[in-house]
């Protein structure tokens, strides 16, 4: 009798009272699955299905603004995209933006973290202010910098004009425009790097610094042998996050330069957008998006490889 009760409680085989579907579904061995089901369903509907659908599209010659029945074209879209000079030019631009912006974010983020690792009056308020940019929306930052760089009444132009007497046009050359975008992106995301590095810095045991001081180790030695090993993992994480995010940079570029002058600041994300929603080459855009995804996966794998090697070296 006792055994029968236990089975019924678990929602297992129906007891003499009859089958209870609620009890059956909530049985401990099924409860886990039931709890994660909403997340899995949402993930499937919002991510996996569209991902699979766009993968399928990339093998057809489908255009969203045509009624013609699309043909299966195998890998022709991938071939066209990979042999398109414009695509490689955009990858090159993206690489320059990623390399420069992430490097700048690391330098500024690191410097800020060193500053905020020590106590000083007003530190909390200042820290909050420094963190503000990363909390703003991309659109707000884009519009802000667009006005900031505006040559007639923008702050940068007005400030430079005090010394030169001439309006300063930051975005008039490809190099200037690239710098403008890199600065805007670095301004927004350096606080994120700072936050990660700061977390690493405060985790360094104080006694290590005290021991180093007794040994009269200089600043560089202390940094190289104590500080850096502690923050290396977090720094790599910051590099990974920022590289992936910057690789997909769209909003800031679109708002500040629209990819110009010409196409000199058009990143690969902007080009995917143009291909999908302006050129309406839907299938080619899907193929290009998958290539971008592949590049991001490769970058992530490289990071994981680097982390593993670091762990093994320890």
């Amino acid at each position, binding site marked *: 009798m006792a055994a029968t009760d236990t089975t019924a409680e678990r929602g297992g085989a129906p007891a003499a009272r009859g089958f209870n579907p609620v009890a059956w579904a909530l049985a401990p061995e099924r409860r886990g699955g039931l709890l994660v089901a909403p997340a899995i369903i949402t993930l499937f509907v919002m991510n996996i299905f569209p991902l699979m659908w766009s993968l399928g599209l990339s093998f057809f010659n489908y255009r969203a603004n045509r009624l013609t029945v699309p043909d299966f074209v195998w890998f022709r879209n991938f071939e066209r995209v990979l042999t398109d000079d414009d695509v490689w030019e955009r990858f090159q631009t993206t690489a320059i933006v990623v390399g420069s912006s992430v490097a700048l974010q690391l330098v500024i983020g690191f410097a800020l973290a060193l500053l905020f690792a020590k106590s000083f009056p007003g530190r909390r308020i200042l820290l909050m202010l420094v963190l503000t940019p990363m909390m703003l929306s991309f659109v707000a930052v884009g519009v802000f910098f667009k006005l900031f760089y505006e040559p007639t009444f923008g702050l940068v132009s007005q400030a430079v004009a005090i010394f030169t007497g001439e309006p300063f*046009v930051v975005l008039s050359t490809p190099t200037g425009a690239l710098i403008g975008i890199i600065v805007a992106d670095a301004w927004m995301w350096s606080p994120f790097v700072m936050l990660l590095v700061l977390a690493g810095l405060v985790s360094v045991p104080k006694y290590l610094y005290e021991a180093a001081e007794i040994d009269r180790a200089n600043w560089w030695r202390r940094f190289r042998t104590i500080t850096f090993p502690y923050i290396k993992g977090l720094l790599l994480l910051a590099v990974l996050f920022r590289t992936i995010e910057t690789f997909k940079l769209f909003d800031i570029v679109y708002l500040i330069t629209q990819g110009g002058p010409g196409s000199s600041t058009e990143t690969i994300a902007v080009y995917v957008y143009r291909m999908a929603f302006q050129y309406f080459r839907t299938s080619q855009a899907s193929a290009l998006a998958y290539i971008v995804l592949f590049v991001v996966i490769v970058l992530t794998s490289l990071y994981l490889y680097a982390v593993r090697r670091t762990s093994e070296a320890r």
Partner: protein
Amino acid sequence: MPTRTLALLGTASALAIAALAGPAPAVAEDIVLNMAAPDWPPTRFMQEEADRSYTAPSGNNVRLQIDFIPWPSFYERVAASLTSGEQKYQMLVTDSQWLGSFIEGGYYMDLTGLIAEDEELQAIMQDLHPALVSAYSTYPHIPVTELQEYPDPNANYYGFPQMPDTYVTWYREDLFCNETESADFEAEYGAPLPCTYEDWEDVDWERFDQIGTFFRRSAGDALGDGTADDEFYGIAYQAGKGYDFSTMQINAFIWQYGGSIWDESTEPEGQAEGVVNSDVAVEAFEHYLSMLEHMPPAWQTGQMDIFQIQELYLQGKVAAIINWVGLAEPVLDPETSTVSEVSAFARAPGLRQEDGSISRWANIGGQPFVLTTWNSDTVVREALDFVKWWESEEVQKKFAANGGQSGLRSVMELPEYNDYRPWNRAHVESLDWQKDVWHIPEFFELLTQQQEEFDKAITGQIDAREALDEVAEFQQEVLEDAGRIE
């Protein structure tokens, strides 16, 4: 009289009264006409006026519900809605250039047959300015020079004007009518500054260029009756990389020079190479580029779009600009404009021809509104009734009195029409000079590449010849792929 007989008589009387009152649905349906439209005064007025005074003649409870979308994301939102298949809208305000793309996609409804069955709609089509019928309604596109009065047997009709638009000159009367400035200008260029509308009728690009040079002032320089408190510029026109913000102005130069863009009405024989990059097109483009140096430096960044030049003018930083009349309303508002009391309007300059006349070909702006293909018969009937209401003389007069523009010739010819707004005369007189850019599904592809190449030339990375060669080569390839060029 027995009670039963009384009841029967009452019912019969009620039925007779109902029959005399005219046809009415047995039960009034609630119908909402969802419409996608850009968020700006002409569409806001449409919503307000519909809420205020529209009653469906069918007796149904028909309500217009406009989904106001900001201009910068308007195309993306419309394209996403249509191509996703959500079938949200019964009507849409659309740029004329999108017709091909969304008609070929099966989203916009062919109204040719419905117009042919309805005398009121036919009357509207006959009353509309032909430039608007050509640009806003026909697909495949029939150029205004070839379009016959309604009904053109070769035309398929799709849209009706929501807000016709043209670009005109906005200028500062306090500067152009200033005696000292005018005398100085005359001493330098041999003619006084254009002050009145009639004076501006004789302004060609050469004079406009001189105005640009003349009014370039630095902070502290004399300007009109005072001094410039900041850098001041003579002229401005569209030179932006976004959307169509340089193409609209460059097309005007090319047409005025006698050149051509790729002409969709000539397919499949009409070529892009040799036409788009012809010598005359290059000369026209060089002329356009040569005047940029007199403009506020935003052109160097490829950001001199219609909103930027509007803003610069409102801030009092430019003497004269060329911009759409649809954006002129804030000029009159002292809360948004520093030049509300001193602004006047004239037709845009053009190219002086050998016979002394001025060619003023320009690219038409504004938008039609269309019906979507998934509407039920009832909704189509209600939507067309709404079109008749909107294009009625009474509503169009109210629209014009509130800053809109009518496409109906009968309304534009009213004596009071030009008094509704100070730019109306310039707009009406510009309409005969309007052409339109392509309407084909490849429109955005052609436009985006062209804007990029134009932007390179504007920002000095390449010259006019290189830019047009690149444009021609790209267009030839795309149009050959699409089967539009043999």
